[in-house]
């Protein structure tokens, strides 16, 4: 007598969750994600804009097996499935669209901290190269045999 394999309902539910998550991630490509809700102030309307970067990945697997070869008198069967995944959404303000009766203009949003960090990294490249070259110049000459 062998045990019947019962369809794994949890695996189907897991797949549905993954499908929904993937659809949510793909919704990140919509225009409404990048342009925020307009803010009205008197005659002026402000629309915030942001860039959105998202990455995701998941994997699923299932398998089944039996022990009929090892124990022919009392074979047993089993199956299992599993899955996992992960993702991340990053958002950063880019600019603000200001629309007033006088006209429409785009005001950039400047992240001073990030620019300063990039500047320090650039200086680090140059200082590092300078030290490397000067230490090579002041190095003791090789002893000739």
């Amino acid at each position, binding site marked *: 007598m062998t045990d019947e394999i019962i369809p794994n309902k949890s695996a189907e539910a897991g797949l549905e969750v*993954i499908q929904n998550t*993937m659809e949510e*991630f*793909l919704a*990140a*490509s*919509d*225009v*409404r*994600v*990048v*342009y925020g809700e*307009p803010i009205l102030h008197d*005659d002026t*309307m402000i*629309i915030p*804009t*942001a*860039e*959105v*970067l*998202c*990455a*995701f*990945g*998941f*994997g*699923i697997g299932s398998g089944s097996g039996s022990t009929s070869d090892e124990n022919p008198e009392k074979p047993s069967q089993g199956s299992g499935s599993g899955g996992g*995944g992960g993702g991340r959404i990053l958002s*950063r303000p*880019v*600019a603000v*669209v200001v*629309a*007033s*009766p006088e*006209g*429409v203009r*785009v005001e*950039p*949003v*400047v*992240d001073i901290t*990030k*620019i300063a960090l*990039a*500047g320090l*990294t*650039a*200086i*680090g*490249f*140059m200082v*590092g*190269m*300078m030290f*490397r*070259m*000067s230490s*090579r110049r002041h190095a003791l000459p090789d002893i000739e045999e």
Partner: protein
Amino acid sequence: MSVIKSEIKKGDSRQVGNFKLTPMNQVLSVQIPGYHAGWVWNRPKAVVVRTSDGQERVLPVTDVTRVAIWTLLASGLLGAILMGLLYRVR
């Protein structure tokens, strides 16, 4: 199913006074066929402004922070390479 896809999308227009604003965004998506993984980069591209007299103007949305970061990093790298070359010549 394509691996790398780049497209420009237009959003719903909004009327503000005499101006009609249409937002545009650029989407770069990467999906590897056969693998359940992907990458989506969505950024604002421009705003199309249409006046009541029919004139149309495209205002680009520039990411000043990104431009500044890449410029600084590129100049730092270039400066380091130039410095190395100068030391070698001396």
